[in-house]
């Protein structure tokens, strides 16, 4: 009987011993599992988004992804503070999932934005560089206001800064600079082209003068001179055919007709040589004086005085010549037309008193010019 009791105790002890690991396994098995995989994945995709510069190019989505990740971690730590079997990680998993989703979107958007920005920036740089080329070609020697000149300079500098940032892959910075540059350059270019268009409104009149001058040269088989102010050209015709073409320099305010003495403008109109001045009679190598002001110029001047657009004390200009000492690469005369001395020698030789000298804004219309 006693032996039976001992065995009973031993069996009970053995059963308890066997139950302990079972209980432990059960206890472990019952512990709620945190969404470690989901949180890990969210961290990985955020890291990818960071590498893809999503913080810059997809700021909102990237910010949201990080905020959801932080919420997941905060909730996870909060749940960990509760009794182990009462923990609930559903919110953690939900935040991690949202975070990953936003981070994936941020990477995608960032990549697209970088690609688009890259294309856009290249396109803008090309078009602005072309615009700068046009400005340099058509307006470097064109009288523009100081304000417009400064805006062009600032625009060019910002374009350069944008190019520097672009080369370093700093597309957002490059975009900021190019947007400012675009505004300045486009605005200045618009002002300059408007001014040029207004100037070229006189083209039909110029064309008429040119045709008459060439016709006279053809009919009389004589020399005629045409000065194209815009392209800075002196065109010499014989028998209606262009024989010589030289580069000229003008007065600094060469745009528009001469209105008054001292305005440093080169007049526009149909003139004739009235006097040939050899090297002993001019300080500019040799000179050909023209009949400026002619009757039309005098009439225009009187009209301006009468209208009050010129003061009563204003005086009409005079002593407009084609002369030497040119080739300086700049518009420097008081309104005369300057040639290099060797070219002046040729023009001086073929010219005589009465030779027509027609001065026009341009020999081609604006569309041809801009093409």
């Amino acid at each position: 009987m006693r032996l039976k009791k001992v065995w009973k105790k031993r069996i009970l002890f053995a059963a308890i011993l066997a139950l302990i690991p079972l209980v432990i396994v059960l206890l472990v098995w019952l512990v709620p599992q945190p969404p470690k995989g989901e949180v890990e994945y969210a961290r990985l995709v955020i890291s990818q988004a960071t590498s893809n510069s999503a913080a810059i190019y997809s700021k909102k989505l990237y910010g949201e992804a990080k905020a959801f990740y932080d919420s997941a971690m905060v909730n996870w730590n909060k749940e960990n503070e509760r009794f182990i079997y009462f923990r609930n990680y559903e919110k953690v998993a939900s935040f991690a999932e949202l975070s990953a989703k936003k981070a994936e979107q941020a990477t995608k958007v960032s990549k697209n934005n970088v690609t688009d920005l890259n294309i856009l920036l290249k396109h803008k740089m090309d078009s602005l560089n072309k615009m700068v080329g046009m400005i340099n070609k058509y307006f470097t020697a064109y009288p523009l206001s100081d304000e417009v000149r400064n805006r062009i300079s600032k625009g060019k500098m910002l374009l350069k800064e944008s190019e520097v940032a672009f080369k370093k892959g700093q597309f957002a910075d490059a975009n900021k600079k190019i947007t400012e540059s675009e505004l300045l350059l486009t605005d200045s270019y618009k002002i300059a082209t408007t001014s040029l268009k207004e100037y070229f409104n006189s083209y039909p009149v110029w064309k008429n003068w040119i045709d008459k001058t060439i016709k006279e040269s053809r009919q009389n088989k004589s020399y005629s001179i045409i000065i194209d102010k815009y392209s800075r050209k002196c065109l010499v015709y014989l028998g209606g055919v262009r024989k010589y073409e030289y580069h000229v320099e003008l007065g600094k305010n060469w745009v528009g007709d001469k209105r008054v003495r001292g305005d440093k403008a080169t007049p526009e109109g149909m003139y004739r040589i009235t006097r040939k001045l050899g090297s002993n009679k001019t300080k500019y190598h040799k000179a050909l004086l023209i009949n400026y002001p002619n009757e039309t110029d005098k009439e225009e001047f009187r009209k301006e005085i009468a209208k009050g657009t010129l003061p009563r004390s204003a005086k009409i200009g005079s002593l407009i010549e084609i002369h030497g000492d040119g080739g300086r690469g700049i518009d420097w005369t008081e309104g005369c037309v300057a040639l290099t001395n060797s070219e002046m020698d040729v023009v001086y030789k073929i010219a005589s008193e009465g030779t027509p000298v027609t001065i026009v804004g341009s020999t081609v219309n604006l569309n041809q010019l801009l093409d």
Partner: protein
Amino acid sequence: MGLAAVAMVAVLSSCGKTPQVEIDAANAAIEAAKTAEAAVYLPAEFAAVQDSLNAVMTEIAAQESKLFKKFGPAKTKLASIVTLANQVAANTATKKDEVKGEVANLMTSIKTVIEENGKLIPKLPRGKEGAAVIEQIKADVATVDAAVVEAQGLFDKGAYMDALNKINAANEKATALNTEVKEALTKARIKF
């Protein structure tokens, strides 16, 4: 037996303590790298350190969720993060010095070009003040001067990366102007 099991859980689950000291040290090292402007000068390296800390924090939270906690590997990782963050901070200082030196060199070279431009521009044909070409050159020179002043301001504030971009652009522009002025002088047959 139930009581014993609960007591055992309580004892086991409190084994292993969150390595707070190590976490604080890692955070402090990262903050130091941030203060050294690692995000500006070495953004990829800085992001990698931050990501490593995030990974360890996930690992720690996962251990905290377990019945039997084990923080040994996390502690080791946190120690390497401190080392890495310190390294990034040191590399940032080196990189910053490099950029600073580059800006300083460009500042010196651009000043030489600007001085030369200042001497050459008055030599452009006289009596043509107001001539469009010179006006544009003068406007460009003023813009370069303003950019240099701006770059100097950024340099003085310690914003070397921003200063570098600005001075690089100004330098290119000043050099282009120098060429333009020299060409104009050559054309006008003026010695310089």
